[in-house]
């Protein structure tokens, strides 16, 4: 076993550095030759080549043309200057005891549903410090539009204030604003609410994405990237959140009670830039964004579905096939992003096994590329324990790779589109983010979508981080999360 892994490592070393292996002997040989000839020998060779001015000019001209075309068609680099995650106040905490007490009082006519919620909570992987907005703490919950707007203002404005303080950016500097919140979409939009509060410029390009599920954060990043290609020298502010207040399911259908147990309050504000001066201070550089939409398949489309229960109460129905569909969506996504991020050795092995299976013998085992070679850190959307388990298995990741996801689920719950940013903050708070490290963010969402983004760390992030949502609890983590927490 040990010998085969060392053979594999040698193979990887050779293939990944093949260009160096070719160039180094050539350079050494050239250096030896130059040394042997001496300066006079070189001048003699140059004179014997007999190039006239036209030929020199043509060569220079062609080089200039190629350089111009290359620089003109290169896409603009998109940098993540900094981001800020919302840390809910302690007063919004929902420990298991509070949640179950509320559940027993609200669902007193449905003890089976109460039991169901308790079983879900025991196995959920959530901790005792996750938070719900104030309106949901009432018995029964009071989800008015005003309360929903209040929650939106609290989470979004806090994150934005923290981000502006961290980056030193002024409201008037923001050129592009994208807000994504899946299940709450008032008119005027949340983006208009941000423009109003911070008095942003009247020529701002604002967009409000809605209904796009837990992967909407990466969809917003993709939109920001496209916009930054068309607008040079600009700042784009992306706000990812999920407003819980209007979406608490008030009925008793079991499949629809699941989101109540998992979704919690959270928000993240991210500042992107394509300005050259930010290439130094930015934390990350965006390398790839790949989006996969499985909506054409009916089963995938219906697996996360908002509908009314027999009593007319609106909630989100999660199908039992969710994990299988997530696995398939992930496979499609990987097929596209694999060639972009995997090192040459993995791609070569995959190609060899593919050719082998097609031509030589179909019984050869398919080679699953080792994605741990592609990136150093993984941020898997903390959708639920089952999602993280499934992805750990399919991508063959170690416990440390999925630690950020599990701990975010434990401390903050499923905060939907902003969870990826809490996970990134965890990795930074642990001091694991070094310059040159790559991070792969994977998120799933209703539709069924699987979106990925790969970032490259621009500068080593030193701990302790001043404004991190993990500031006061990072020493306690990682915690051991048992399979079942007996309530």
């Amino acid at each position, binding site marked *: 076993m040990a010998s085969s892994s060392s053979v594999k490592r040698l193979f990887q070393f050779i293939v990944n550095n093949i260009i160096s292996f070719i160039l180094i002997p050539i350079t050494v040989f050239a250096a030896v030759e130059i040394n042997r000839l001496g300066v006079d020998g070189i001048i003699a060779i140059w004179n014997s080549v007999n190039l006239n*001015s036209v030929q020199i*000019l043509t060569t220079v*001209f062609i080089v200039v*043309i190629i350089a*111009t*075309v290359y620089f*003109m068609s290169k896409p603009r680099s998109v940098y993540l200057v900094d981001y800020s995650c919302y840390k809910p106040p302690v007063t919004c905490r929902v420990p298991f005891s509070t949640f179950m007490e509320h559940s027993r009082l609200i669902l007193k006519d449905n003890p089976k549903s109460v039991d169901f919620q308790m079983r879900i909570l025991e196995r959920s992987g959530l901790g005792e410090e996750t938070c719900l907005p104030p309106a949901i703490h009432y018995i029964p919950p009071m989800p*008015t*539009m*005003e309360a929903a707007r209040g929650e939106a203002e609290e989470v979004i404005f806090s994150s934005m204030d923290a981000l502006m303080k961290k980056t030193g950016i002024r409201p008037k500097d923001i050129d592009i604003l994208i807000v994504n919140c*899946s*299940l*709450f*979409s*008032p*008119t*005027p*939009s*949340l*983006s*208009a*609410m941000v*423009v*109003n509060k911070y008095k*942003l*410029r009247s*020529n*701002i*390009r*604002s*967009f*409000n*994405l*809605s*209904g*796009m*599920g837990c992967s909407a954060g990466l969809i917003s990043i993709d939109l920001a990237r*496209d*916009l930054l*290609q*068309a607008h040079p020298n600009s700042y784009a502010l992306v706000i990812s959140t999920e407003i819980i207040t209007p979406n608490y399911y008030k009925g008793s259908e079991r499949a629809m009670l699941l989101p109540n147990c998992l979704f919690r309050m959270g928000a993240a504000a991210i500042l992107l830039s394509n300005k050259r001066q930010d290439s130094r201070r930015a934390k990350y550089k965006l390398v790839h964004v790949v*989006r*996969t*939409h499985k*909506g*054409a398949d009916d089963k995938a*489309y219906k697996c*996360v*579905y*908002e*509908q*009314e229960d027999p009593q*007319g109460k*609106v909630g*989100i129905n999660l199908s039992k096939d969710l994990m299988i569909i997530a696995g398939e969506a992930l496979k*499609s996504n990987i097929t*596209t992003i694999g060639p972009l991020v995997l090192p040459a050795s993995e791609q070569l092995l995959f190609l060899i096994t593919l050719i082998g299976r097609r031509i030589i013998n179909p019984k050869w085992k398919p080679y699953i590329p080792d994605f741990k070679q592609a990136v150093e850190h993984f941020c898997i959307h903390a959708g639920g324990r089952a999602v993280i388990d499934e992805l750990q298995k399919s991508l063959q990741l170690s416990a440390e790779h999925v630690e950020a996801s599990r701990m975010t689920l434990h401390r903050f719950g499923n905060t939907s589109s902003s969870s990826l940013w809490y996970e990134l903050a965890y990795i930074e708070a642990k001091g694991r983010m070094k310059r040159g490290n790559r991070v792969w963010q994977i998120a799933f969402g*209703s*539709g*069924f979508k699987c979106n990925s983004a790969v970032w490259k760390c621009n500068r080593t992030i030193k701990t302790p981080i001043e404004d991190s949502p993990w500031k006061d609890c990072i020493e306690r983590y990682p915690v051991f999360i048992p399979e079942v927490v007996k309530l």
Partner: protein
Amino acid sequence: MELIMLAICIWTLLFSFYHFCKKRDQCCYLLHYECHKPSDDRKLNTELSGSIVARNLNLGHLEYKFMLRAIVNSGIGEDSYGPRNIIDGRENSHSLEDGILEMDEFFKDTLSQLFVKTKVSPKEIDLLVVNVSLLSCAPSLASRIINMYQMRDDVKSYNLSGMGCSASIISINIVSNFFKSHRNSMALVVTSESIAPNWYSGNDKSMMLTNCLFRSGGCTMLLTNKPAMKNRSKLQLKCLVRTHLGASDEAYTCGMQKEDSQGILGFYLDKNLPKTAKRAFTQNIAIIAKTCLSYTELLRYFVMKYSKKKATLNFKAGIDHFCMHPGGTAVIEEIRKGLGLNHEDVEPSKMSLHRFGNTSASSLWYVLGYMEAQKRMKKGDKLWMIGFGSGFKCNSCVWEVIRDLEDANVWEDVIKNEKEEVNPFMDRFSWINQDTYDPPPGSLFQKKM
């Protein structure tokens, strides 16, 4: 020396050629658009409108009169469309399914026709943008369309919501930005408004106007930046300007979804809305005039201004057709006066308001459809689309007509019958404008109409 000069010249030529090709690949062409014409059993005529108003038991006499007055003076005719649940009498017990059903009917009607007429397959779509302000469901409406039409799994979709009546221009903005970094692409824009779950059943007067003005409708558009499809396209996007007055509290709150004093959800329209619209519009004009008016006109304007004479911009010097959001007769009139236009210039907006009502974000496309059906759009004409929306936003764009357009589309029956524009409510309810009786506050109006 000459060789170097020659090299520089050739380099400049090649550079300009490359730049030209790049710009050409970034152009945004409107291939085709389909407006939604719901089935005739969804028409909201005078009889039905009156009875819907009357059956709202929350209304007192004053509110009833107010609502009736608003309908009579709205400028909406006999043939606008409403969602099924309101026509069936279930306006107060709407469900999520009613909202989705309204959208499904719209998708099936327009998208199938759009794909057939343009001979484009749904699998060729690279970008899908959907905007429906008042309905947000999971999975999104964009996912719903992808599922219905079996689009590719690498299609980029965006679902905009809450962006008001000017959202279709915002969707076009996303498409034109996408075309700048992706060559040879096709984009589908779907714009509509959800009326079914948004009927206001309370009695706050400032929230009842939406019941009187908004009607069902929608439009789907196919856009491309493939140079080969330019000859088949109808319009080319020249410029797009967005103005957001959200920084001002007065502008932000003038059109807002909120609960009234009794906790009933509705859409509040402030009295100052036309004034805010005018302010937003002025700011927007200041930017777009520079790009779309001819230099002679701009020069004339500046000369007049600096010589301290009364200077007004003559927009007809650069624009041939004005496509205004038919938000209501007050808004249309306000803009008409602001731009110095005559009644013929705003006739398409008034006709659209009369025939289809205010269909929110898609209404601009009905106005465009009218102009096309009347065969007014000739090659080389410039068209200015102006939309307003809550936030408060004013978004406008200028299109150039690529070829003579003559598709009668959803206006076919109107053009054929050459109906006179009459206000059908005047016959039955014209007494409301002369009615001066005001009962003591608190008394309920029981009489059936």
